[in-house]
C-alpha cells in the first residue's frame, strides 16, 4: 500500500506569480498588441478576454544554439520505402516554393499565442490613458452589490441576531415543553412561607408542606433543564448581496468623417468611445450603441462603416444632431432609456451651422441626455496655441455657451490619449448620486 495524497484541493494557480512576471516582462509587446486589437476590434469587445499573439523576440531566452545552415549532419529517419544508398534528395530550402514553407514554419515557432484575462486587458488598455487608480478599480469591478435583508438564518454573527424572532421561538418552545412559569413557582413558594409562618399543626400539615417543597424542587429542576432561551431558538437576520438596480442605456457615438479626420484622429476618437462604453457598462445592464457619422449629411451606420469607410463632402454638424434626435424619438424614449452621447470632431463646421448646433443642444438634446461629451481632436502642436482659451473653431465657441449652462455637458480638446480621461472626470464624480430611471 503506497502513500496516497489527494492534492486536488491544494491551492490552484501555483504559476500565477510566474504569469504576472511574464506579463510584466512582455508589457511593451502586449500593449502594442492590445492597441492593435482595440483599433481593429469593436468597442464593446474591449471589455472581455483577449487572445493575443506576440512575437517571441521581446521575451526570448537565448542560449548557445547550433546554427541550422552550417556544417555536416547525419540524420537517422524511420519509414524508408524506395530509397537506396547513394540516392540524392533535393533539400527543402532549395526550391522556390519550398522556401516559403520553411519561412512559414519558422514564423509560427516564433509567434506564440495566449489568452489575456479581462483584467489584464483593461490594465493594458488603461495604461496610457492615465486614469486615477480608483477609477480603474471601479471600471474593472463587474457588478456593484448591495447587501439586502433576505429572511432569517439559523447561523450568523451575534450582531445580526433577530431578537423578536428568537423570542418567538423561545416562547413556543417553553409552552410546548411546559416550562414552569415564574408566577407558578412564586405561588408555591408563597404558600410554603405561609405554612411555615403559620402555627405548626399535625402530620397533615407537615405532609402538605413536604409535598409543596417537593413540587417546588421538581419545578425548579424542570425550569433549570428547560432554558429560557435555547441556542435552537436563535435566529439571525440573513443578508444577500443583490446587484444594484441597473437599467438600460443608449450611447450615441457621433463623429465627423469628412476628409479632415485622419487615421490618428479616428484612433483617438475610438479610444474615447471605448472608455465611455466601459464607464456605462459598469452602471447599466444593457447598453445599445448607435453610431452616427456625418459629413454634410448624417446617417446611422454600423460600427465597421463608422470607423473604416470613407465619405467625402463638406461638414454640417447639425445634421448629426438632428439624426440623433430622430433616433431618440423613434427608438429610445427618454423615459425608458438613459441617453449618453459622445461627439468627436476636429471642430470644422460650415459657417453659420455652429450656432444652430448650440441651439439644438440647448432646446432639445440636453433635456434628454444624461450626459453629453464633446471632444475636439487637435494636433499636438495646436495644444500650445490654444491651451485652455476659448478661442478656437466656431463649433468650439458655440459649444462653450452650452457648457456654461448645463452641468451634464462636457467638452475638451484632446491631442494624445492621456487627454481623454479628464472629460469623464465629472461623469465619474457624479456617480454616487446617479439617478436611475425605471
Amino acid at each position, binding site marked *: *500500500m*503506497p*502513500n*496516497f*495524497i*489527494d*492534492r*486536488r484541493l*491544494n491551492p*490552484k*494557480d*501555483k*504559476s500565477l*506569480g*510566474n*504569469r*504576472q*512576471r*511574464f*506579463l*510584466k*516582462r*512582455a508589457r511593451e509587446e502586449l500593449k502594442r498588441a492590445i492597441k492593435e486589437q482595440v483599433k481593429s476590434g469593436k468597442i464593446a469587445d474591449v471589455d472581455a478576454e483577449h487572445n493575443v499573439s506576440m512575437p517571441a523576440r521581446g*521575451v*526570448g*531566452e*537565448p*542560449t*548557445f*544554439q*547550433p*546554427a*541550422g*545552415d*552550417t*556544417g*555536416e*549532419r*547525419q*540524420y*537517422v*529517419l*524511420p*519509414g*524508408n*520505402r524506395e*530509397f*537506396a*544508398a*547513394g*540516392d*540524392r*534528395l*533535393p*533539400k527543402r530550402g*532549395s526550391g522556390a516554393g519550398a522556401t516559403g514553407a520553411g519561412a512559414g514554419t519558422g514564423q509560427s515557432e516564433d509567434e*506564440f*499565442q*495566449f*489568452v489575456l484575462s479581462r483584467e489584464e486587458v483593461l490594465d493594458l488598455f488603461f495604461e496610457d490613458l492615465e486614469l486615477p487608480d480608483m477609477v480603474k478599480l471601479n471600471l474593472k469591478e463587474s457588478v456593484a452589490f448591495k447587501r439586502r435583508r433576505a429572511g432569517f438564518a439559523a447561523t450568523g454573527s451575534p450582531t445580526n441576531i433577530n431578537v423578536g424572532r428568537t423570542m418567538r421561538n423561545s416562547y413556543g418552545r417553553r409552552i410546548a415543553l411546559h416550562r414552569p412559569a415564574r408566577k407558578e413557582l412564586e405561588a408555591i413558594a408563597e404558600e410554603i412561607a405561609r405554612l411555615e409562618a403559620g402555627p405548626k399543626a399535625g402530620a397533615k400539615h407537615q405532609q402538605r408542606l413536604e409535598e409543596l417543597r417537593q413540587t417546588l424542587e421538581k419545578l425548579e429542576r424542570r425550569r433549570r433543564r428547560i432554558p429560557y432561551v435555547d441556542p435552537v431558538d436563535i435566529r439571525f437576520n440573513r443578508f444577500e448581496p443583490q446587484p444594484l438596480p441597473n437599467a438600460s442605456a443608449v450611447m450615441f457615438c457621433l463623429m465627423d468623417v469628412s476628409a479632415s479626420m485622419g487615421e490618428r484622429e479616428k484612433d483617438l476618437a475610438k479610444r474615447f468611445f471605448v472608455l465611455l462604453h466601459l464607464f456605462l457598462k459598469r452602471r447599466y445592464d444593457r447598453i445599445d450603441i448607435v453610431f452616427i457619422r456625418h459629413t454634410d449629411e448624417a446617417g446611422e451606420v454600423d460600427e465597421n462603416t463608422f470607423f473604416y469607410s470613407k465619405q467625402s463632402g463638406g461638414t454640417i454638424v447639425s445634421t448629426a444632431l438632428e439624426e440623433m434626435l430622430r433616433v431618440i424619438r423613434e427608438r429610445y424614449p427618454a423615459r425608458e432609456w438613459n441617453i449618453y452621447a459622445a461627439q468627436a470632431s476636429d471642430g470644422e463646421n460650415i459657417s453659420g451651422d455652429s450656432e444652430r448646433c448650440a441651439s439644438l443642444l440647448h432646446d432639445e438634446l440636453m433635456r434628454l441626455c444624461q450626459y453629453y461629451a464633446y471632444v475636439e481632436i487637435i494636433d499636438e502642436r495646436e495644444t500650445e496655441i490654444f491651451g485652455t482659451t476659448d478661442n478656437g473653431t466656431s463649433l468650439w465657441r458655440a459649444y462653450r455657451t452650452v457648457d456654461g449652462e448645463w452641468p451634464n455637458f462636457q467638452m475638451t480638446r484632446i491631442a494624445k490619449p492621456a487627454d481623454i480621461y479628464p472629460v469623464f472626470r465629472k461623469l465619474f464624480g457624479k456617480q454616487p448620486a446617479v439617478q436611475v430611471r425605471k
Partner: protein
Amino acid sequence: MQRKGAASNLLFEGSDWNFETLARAYDAIETVALEDLGLDVYPNQLEIISSEQMLDAYSSVGMPLMYQHWSFGKRFVFEDHLYRRGRRGLAYELVINSNPCITYLMEENTMAMQALVTAHAAFGHNHFFKNNYLFRQWTDASAILSYMEFAKKYIIKCEERYGTTAVEAVLDSAHALMDQGVFRYRRPPRLSSEKERERTRERLEYEEQTFSDLWRTLPTTSESSDPDAVERDVSERKKALNLPEENLLYFLEKTSLILEPWQREILRIVRVIAQYFYPQRQTKVMNEGCATFVHYSIMNNLFDQGRITEGAMLEVLQSHTNVVFQPSFDDPRFPGINPYALGFAMMQDIERICVDPTAEDRDWFPEIAGSGNWRETLLDAWANHRDESFILQYLSPSLIRKFRLFLLSDEADEKYCEVASIHNERGYEAIRAALARSYDIGANQPDIQVMDVDLLGDRHLRLQHNVKNGILLEEASRDATLRHVRHLWGYEVSLAGVEAETGETLYECSTADIEE
C-alpha cells in the same frame, strides 16, 4: 459459485476510481513488478492532481517546488493555450526522481488508466531512477526535494532583500548558460545538507566582511618581456584556475569578481538543477522504454491472471499503441523518432533475442541470444547504459528493418541530401552508430569552454567553441548569450570558434564588438 469467485478476483470494474480500487490495483501491480520482473524501487508516493495543477507542474519543469521566474510563466501560457485549444493533451502522469518517488496521477484518468500509469511511472520510471548508473552517480534522489525547498526560499529571500529585478537579471543570465552549467565528465559533489550549506554561507559572509586589502602580502609580479616567462605565467594561472573548464556556470560562480555572495548562490542553484536533469536528458529512450515495457508486461500479466476486464485491457492497449506510435519521416505528424516507440521496441526485441533468436541474432549478439534470461539481461541494460551506449549495444538488424531506418547525410553547402545507408547488410552498422551518436548529448551540444583569463590584468574572459563537423552557432542568440556571460563576468568576454580537428580558428567575437 465459480463465476462469483472470478468476479471478486477483479481489481476493479467500470471506469470510476476511488482510493480503495487504486490501492488494490497498486498492490497487485507491486506484486507482479517485484516478483515477476524483479524490479527494485524507491517507496512510492502517489498524488492525485487536477488538470490545472498538471499545467502548473509542466511549467515549473516538473518539479513540485520551484522558484519563481517569468520564463516559467511564459511556458505556462504557452502550454495552457495549446491545451485549451485542444491542440495538445496533457500527460496522464508525471514522475519525479526523488526518494520517496512522487508520481502525479490526473484525476480525469479512468481507473484503467490509473492502473496503467501506476505501472508505468511508479514502477517503470521508479526502477530506472533507482538503478540506472547515471542517476545513482549524478543525482541525489533523497536530497533533491529539500534542496528545491531551500532554493525556492532562498530566491524569495533575495527578492525581498535585493528586489525582483536584480534577482531576475541574474536568473536570466544563469538560465542562458544552463546547458553549459553541467559537469559532463567530472562527477559533481553531492548535495550537502542544509546545515552545511548554512555554514558555508556564513563563512563566505564572514570572509566578505573581514576582507582587507592591506593584508595582501604577495609581491607584485615584475614585468617581464621574456616570452618563455610569459608562457609559463599563462600556464601557471590556467593551472591555478583549473582551466580549461567546461562548466561555465561553475567557473563564473567561483571566479567572477563582480558577483555578490547571493548572486553566486543563485548561479549555484541553477547549476544544481541543470545537473539534476542532465541524466534524464541522456536517457530519454531508455527511461521511457523501460517504463513502457514494464507497464506492458504488468498489464498483460494482470490480464492473464483475470484480474482486469477485457474492456479495461482494450483501453490500456489503445493508450499503449498511441504512445508507441512511430510515424514515417514523410508523415505530416512526424516529430522525430519517438523515444517511447524506439525504447519499447528495443526492449521487446531483447526479450525476443533472449528467448527466440534467429541465426542473425546469434551472429550479432552471441552473449545473450538464446540465453532465455531476458529479465536479467534487461535489468542489466537498464542499470548500466545510457541512450547512446544502449543503442550502440542492442539495436538489432531486425529492428532496423522493422523501423525501415535509413541514414541521411546533409552538408550545408550542397543542394541535396544524400541517402548514406539503408536497412541492408552494409548499412546496419552505420545506421546503428549514427543513431547512437544522435543521442549523445555531449557530442551534439556546442562544446564551449573557458580557455583563459588574466585576473590580475585586463580580466578578459576567453571562451572557446570547439567546432565539430563545421556546425557553427546561431549568431543572434550567440551574441545575446555572450551578453549574459558578460553580465555575470563584468568584463570583456570573447568567444573563438576553433575547428576541433585542425585547430583552425573559424570565427571570433567579443562583447566589445556587440552592441548593447
